[in-house]
Structure formats: structure tokens, C-alpha cells
């Protein structure tokens, strides 16, 4: 089938959205932006296509009625199992890479010890992996780098101690290897891992196993269907580095405006807070951008700020919002310099402020910056749509809601759980328009 794809190459994350001919979203994919933008774009697209297949599975299975009542559970399980398979695949690669990197003269006599420790460490990692993917598991992130990294750090210290090698050495090997692993694509493994995941799922859901054949048939059908990449549009911070011609590139402002319009057609104002930039966009009733403002050359108060804070507090990004929600008061934070965030935090802690109250202050500070940029672009109009990674953060949303009410009165605030994909959705829509409205065909990729 014909697919229209938007890829949003952000500074922190790369997102892809696949839409079908009916302009409905088929799949979404996300990965962390890494040193190799090509890879990031490819991986995000693969993820989106995989998720599109899951969507098609769902449709096919729903039609076949093979799983009446259990469809959601089944798809959920299948997806988790698939993630686990992918994770294990990458973990094995990481292990091999680490072992390779531990060789040579770097560690001299300690090399053997390091390798031994690594083998043990990876054994434990593997054993702990399935727990990451059980239903309702609290994961700190969805990205391999973060997941494996967190576990590695958590287990590494003990393993190093037991093995009598320096923990620093293990860290060193990891830092070196993760980059290599991250920059590899695992496109070929997808079908294999899907089939393996299928086995796992059927095992996990014995009642479905009895109908295994009825389930497999539609899935197989979907798997055999080709997803044709009819037209791809790239956008985002790193778009200039995408291997696309100018025709296939759109400004992220336009994409965010259009994406928000697609999600909520009555959107008038869009706020996007990403990793390194904050954008305020005013759109007209057709999704056309009327004016926009971005933060200037200083990245203060953008999403990366939260990243630094999370690092400083040794927490996952997911956990910051919930912590801030526990606040009983809001500590006033004046500097939103991303790099000094840690210092500011320590400053406040040493003054005896509570962590959650400081967190509430930090979130408010970010939103205050955004409010200024919004004011600069022409204010908040009804309806107001909040997008970008930070929209996932409930404390940021709470501050935004308050400040918007204080300054602009009641307006409808739209936040989509998939708001991080807004730019990519806009891109995909542009791709769709290019083909179906402007009659363009994809250019050969160079």
C-alpha cells in the first residue's frame, strides 16, 4: 500500500509518522537522535513502519475476529515481546562490541579481568531484561541507550567490585561501545524478531495459543504486504542534514503548525517545546502559519534543561513531572540556563528547600520562558495546542495551564499523547499533499 512518511529530525529525538492514503495515522516511530542522523532517520522510519504493521495486524485481526475481546491484550503483549526481542538483539551486539573494545592494550593487565566482569555483567543484564517489558513496567526511557545504560550502571558497580576491576574501566568500555551499537541499524532483524515475539506471545497467552493458526494467518498476510514509501518529507532541527533534496524538506515551523492543525483542526496557537528550541506558532483555520517566534541563541528553558536536571537528580525524564506534582509550594527559580540548572538545584537544596518544591519551580521557570515566547508571537488564542517532548510532562502542563489561565483567561488546551509526533505528522501530511494534491512523485534518493 502507499505510505506517506514524515520524519522530524529533532535535536534530542527523531520521530517518524506514516499515514495512509486516507490520511489516517498508521504508525509512529521514535528514537534518540544520535551522531549519525542518517541512522536516526532510518531507525525512526523503521520503527514507524513496524508500528504501522502492528496497526494493520490489529485491523486484520479485528476483522477476522480471531481474538474476540482479547485483541488489545494480545497486541499489547505482542508489542512488548517484540521490543524485548529487539532489546536482546541489541544487547547481544553490545556485549560483543564491549568485549572487542576491552581487548588491546587499553587496560593492559586488567584486560582479562574486565572481560570476565563484562561477561558476568551481561549475563545479569540478559536475565533482568524480560522484567523491563512486563505489563505496566516502569521504564525510565524507551531508548536502548538509556535502558541498557541505566541497568549497566546499576549493576556495574557491584560486578566490578566482585571481579576486582575498576568501575571506571567498565564505564569506559560502555561509553565507547554504545555509540557503535547505536549507529547500527537492525532492519533485517525485524521480521525474525516479530516471528520470535509471536512465539513468546502465544506462550504467554495460552488461551490464544489454541487459536494460533487463525491468528497467524492474518498476521502473515499483513507481513507479506509491501509498505511502499511513496513520498517522504523531512523536517526538524537537523533537516538540512537529511539526505533529501530541497523538495522533500519543510520548515519545522510549517510542519508543527500543520501537524497541530491535523490533530486539532480548530487550533489557533501552537506551543512546541523540544530539546533545544521553543516555538510559538499562530496558525489560521487552514493550518497555515501566520506568525511564529522561537527562542534565540540561548537554549535556556528548553527540554534539554529537564535532561540536565534528570541527570543531576539521577532520575529518568519520565519521573520529573510526577515528582514536581507532589510539591506543596513553588520555589522561585530565576535562571533557566540549562547548564547551570544543576548548580541552581544544589543551591536550593542547600538552602533547605524540598526537592519536589524545587522541581515545581523549575517546571514553572521553563513554562515562563515559553510564555514570553508565546507573548512575543502574539499571545495565546483559542484553541491552544501544546506539542513537543515536554508536553509529556504533567508538571509542565500544569504550570502552562495555570499561566495561560492567569494571562489569557479560559482557552481550550489540547495535548495529545502523541504530541511529540506533531512535526512528523505535519511532514507526513505535506508528503500526502505533494502526491495527492500536487501530483508529485518521489525523487530518487541520492
Amino acid at each position, binding site marked *: 500500500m502507499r505510505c506517506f512518511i514524515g520524519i522530524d529530525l529533532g535535536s534530542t529525538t527523531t520521530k517518524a509518522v506514516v499515514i495512509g492514503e486516507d490520511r489516517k495515522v498508521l504508525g509512529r516511530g521514535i528514537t534518540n537522535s544520535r551522531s549519525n542522523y542518517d541512522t536516526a532517520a532510518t531507525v525512526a522510519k523503521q520503527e514507524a513502519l513496524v508500528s504501522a504493521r502492528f496497526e494493520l495486524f490489529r485491523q486484520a485481526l479485528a476483522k477476522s475476529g480471531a481474538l474476540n475481546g482479547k485483541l488489545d491484550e494480545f497486541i499489547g503483549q505482542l508489542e512488548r515481546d517484540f521490543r524485548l526481542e529487539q532489546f536482546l538483539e541489541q544487547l547481544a551486539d553490545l556485549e560483543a562490541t564491549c568485549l572487542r573494545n576491552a581487548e588491546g592494550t587499553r587496560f593492559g593487565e586488567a584486560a582479562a579481568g574486565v572481560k570476565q566482569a563484562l561477561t558476568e555483567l551481561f549475563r545479569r543484564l540478559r536475565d533482568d531484561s524480560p522484567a523491563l517489558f512486563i505489563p505496566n513496567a516502569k521504564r525510565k526511557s524507551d531508548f536502548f541507550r538509556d535502558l541498557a545504560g541505566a541497568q549497566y550502571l546499576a549493576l556495574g558497580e557491584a560486578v566490578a567490585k566482585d571481579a576486582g576491576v575498576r568501575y571506571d574501566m567498565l564505564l569506559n568500555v560502555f561509553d565507547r561501545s554504545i555509540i557503535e551499537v547505536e549507529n547500527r541499524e537492525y532492519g533485517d532483524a525485524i521480521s525474525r524478531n516479530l516471528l520470535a515475539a509471536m512465539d513468546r506471545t502465544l506462550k504467554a497467552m495460552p488461551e490464544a495459543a489454541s487459536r494460533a493458526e487463525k491468528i497467524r494467518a492474518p498476521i502473515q498476510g499483513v507481513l507479506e504486504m509491501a509498505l511502499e514509501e511513496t513520498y517522504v518529507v523531512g523536517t526538524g532541527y537537523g533537516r538540512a542534514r537529511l539526505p533529501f533534496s530541497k523538495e522533500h524538506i*519543510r520548515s*519545522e515551523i510549517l510542519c508543527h503548525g500543520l501537524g497541530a492543525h491535523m490533530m486539532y483542526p480548530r487550533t489557533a496557537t501552537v506551543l512546541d517545546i523540544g530539546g533545544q528550541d521553543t516555538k510559538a506558532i499562530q496558525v489560521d483555520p*487552514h493550518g497555515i*502559519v501566520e*506568525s511564529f*517566534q*522561537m527562542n534565540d541563541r540561548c537554549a535556556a528553558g528548553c527540554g534539554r534543561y529537564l535532561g540536565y536536571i534528570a541527570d543531576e537528580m539521577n532520575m529518568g525524564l519520565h519521573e520529573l513531572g510526577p515528582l514536581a506534582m507532589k510539591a506543596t509550594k513553588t520555589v522561585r527559580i530565576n535562571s533557566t540556563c540549562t547548564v547551570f540548572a544543576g548548580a541552581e538545584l544544589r543551591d536550593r537544596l542547600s538552602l533547605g528547600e524540598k526537592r519536589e518544591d524545587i522541581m515545581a519551580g523549575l517546571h514553572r521557570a521553563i513554562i515562563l520562558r515559553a510564555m514570553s515566547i508565546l507573548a512575543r508571537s502574539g499571545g495565546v488564542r483559542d484553541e491552544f495546542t501544546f506539542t513537543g517532548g515536554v508536553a509529556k510532562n504533567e508538571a509542565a502542563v500544569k504550570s502552562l495551564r495555570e499561566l495561560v489561565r492567569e494571562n489569557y483567561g479560559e482557552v481550550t488546551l489540547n495535548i495529545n499523547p502523541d504530541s511529540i509526533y506533531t512535526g512528523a505528522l505535519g511532514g507526513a501530511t505535506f508528503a500526502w499533499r505533494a502526491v495527492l494534491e500536487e501530483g508529485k512523485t518521489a525523487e530518487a534518493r541520492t
Partner: protein
Amino acid sequence: MSTQTVNTAALGGAKPKAPVQKEDAMLLQKEMINRNYHELATARQTGRKVSATFVPGNLNELLMCFDFARSLPETNALQNGLRKKSGKMIMDAERDGHSEDVCTYVKADLGMMLQGQVGPTGEPLPTPDVLLLSYTGCFTFMKWFELIRQKYDCETVMLHVPYQGDGHINKNMRDYVVKQINENVIPTLERVSGVKFDIDRLRGYMRESVKSEENLVNVLQSAKHRPSPIDGYFGAVYYIGPIFTAFRGMPEATQFYDVLWQEVQERMRLGKGPVTPEGEIAEEQYRLVVEGPPNWTSFREFWKMFSDEGAVVVASTYAKVGGVYDFGFRHDPEHPIESLAEYCLGCYTNLNFPQRIDMICKYLDEYQADGLLINSIKSCNSFSAGQLLILREVEKRTGKPAAFIETDLVDPRYFSAANVKNRLESYFQMVKAKRVAAAAAH
């Protein structure tokens, strides 16, 4: 009047290094500037005294009456910026104790002095004998010359030009400036130069000035045509060079503007667009009004971001920094001192906010522009403080889209090409999308 012939091979397809295109007038003005630098470099040998003053409110005709060789530190800084020498100078000044926060023109100038006073053309610049501090619409001017005086012990004479706070020039202001010129400026210049002031000489220079002023206005207003034969910002930078600096009142300037005006008329007749360093703009896609000075360190790159998209600037406020002539002001040989005062008081930077906004709205309308672009300069509080209000007001009053970018004059650290390009692209795509939507609606 033809443009320089172009290496045609370089025009089509991939053009790695297209030769820079220039109009005759551009070459002419470059020659003039180089000649002035040479005059400055040899002033000591030729026994001439040297003056330094600022572009807004520069009393060139008056200085000529005393035979001064004339240096303009702002122009030196911008020339050094164009030649990519300013970055180092600014760093040197900062190392000498200047703050990162302040105007980089000042620092480029002081840095140049620290490096041994070598001017943009590689010839040495002499220490001025007198600093004529025309305090016109920029507070930094005052500190700038105080700094030079502190370091080089130059004689300084202050000409304080009051601000048009309520949008008018009144008698009290005019009298004050006239009095200062008569009682402070002229006596000091006489003393330093040893030349007696002769008002008829001043009148004579002013007669020349008027001729240039007429032609400059013609040239700048030619942008009202479609397609515009000139770029009223990037191109205008070359056009305003002579008149805003050491040449106003000289026959050379008169000749330059004659040549230029004829060249522009010819372009209009042929229906041609402006010449850019990369070649002629093939098709005028967007017509813009720009507020704020340009960036000099990446001037060509900056211009290219516009010309690549077919964006032509039809009017800019920057082309009026050295004098607002298009609303009728001319130097008046009949009332020479009064008209000097009037000139200083009427400089663009001396206008208040409502006046600036009116002017921009008028340009958007008269030049049939698609929108306003503000290039906000980190250095320049005089221009920049409050520009965001200009943006809003103009949008509100004209309904045309406005965009905002931030760069600096001569500090390469503050020109982030990717950032600027990102905004410009978004802006152009936005204007286009709006246009398409508007066309569809009809």
C-alpha cells in the same frame, strides 16, 4: 551602463565559485573608499589634520571647511567586518577589559587601535586630531569617544543633539544645536585645524550635497517598480556609502550618484532585477521591507539567503541612518548652520518610536511589500531596544507578516547562519503559503 560581464560557465548548474558581480557604481564607490583610506593614511605626510565623527549626524560639509581628512570609526569597523578582520579586534578589546555585552563597533574600533591602527585596507590610520562627537540618536557614541580620548588623548568636541521624544523638532532643540555648532564646534575646529571658518565655503559644499541627495532618493525610490531594479538593503549599503561618509558635498559624490542613477534607470528600462554578488535575481519572489542594520561579517552569505529565494528588499530603514532624505529634507545652502542642525535632529536613530513605526508602515504600503523583516542587532540598543513592539504594531496596522532574526554587526560569534536561515526559510515558506491560500480563496 552594463554590469560586469559574468563568467557564463559558472552561471548554470553547480557553481562552486561564481565570480562576484558588481555594478559600475559599486566599483566606483569601492575606489572612492579606498582613496579616502589612502588620504587618511598619508594625512601626516601631507600635513593634513584628521577628524573622526559618526555617520548619523555627520557634519561632513563643515569638516571639509577646515580641510580635515575625515575618518568615520563606524565605517572602519564595518569595513573591517566585511573583510572578516573584526572578530579578532573585538576579542582584543575584550581582553583589554571591555565587556562582552557592549556594542561591537566600539570594540572593533578599539581593537583596531590596539593592533596598531592598521585600517581595513591595510594602510595605517592616523590618530585623529579631533573627535567630533555628534551625539545623535546613540548613547554609545558618547562613551566611544570618551574611551578614545582617555586612551589617545585626542581633543573632543561634543555636539549634543536632543532626541525627538515627542516626534517633533522644536525651536528650543534647534537653537540648542545651532548654538553648540557656533559656539563650540566651529571654534574648536578652527583652533585644531588652524583654518578660519568661511560660511560661503560651507554653502558651496551644501550645493553639491543637494545634488547627491536628489539622486540618492531617486535610486532608493526606484524600488517601487516591479521588479525592483535595486536591493534597498544589501545593495543600498553600497549606494549610501559615499553620501553618508566622507564624500557628501564633494563633486565625486555628485558624479557617483549620477552614474548610479543612470545605471538604475537602465535596469528599470530593461525590466531587470537587482544585481547580487551571485548574479542577477532572476525572478522577484518576495518584496520585503527590512528594519535594522545588516550583518557585516557574513554579508555575502546573508544576502545569498535572500537572493537564493528571490527575496528583494525594496526599502530599509538602515538606508536612512545617515540622513532621512526621502521625506523631503535637503541641506539648505541658504541656511547652512540651521540645516546642519535640522539634519542631525532628523536622523533615523533620532526618531522616536511612533515615527519609526509610521515610516515602516508607509514603506510597506508605498513599496507594495509582502512583509517586514527585522534584523535585530545585538550591539545596538539604539536600534534594537523595543523592535519587537515595532514588529507587533506593524503587523497590526498593515496586516502583513513580520519576522524577526537576530545577528550582530561585526561580531562573527553572533551570526549563526543555520539559525538565521531556519527563520528566513520558515518566513518565506509562510509568506508563500499565505499567498497560495489567498489566491485559492479568490
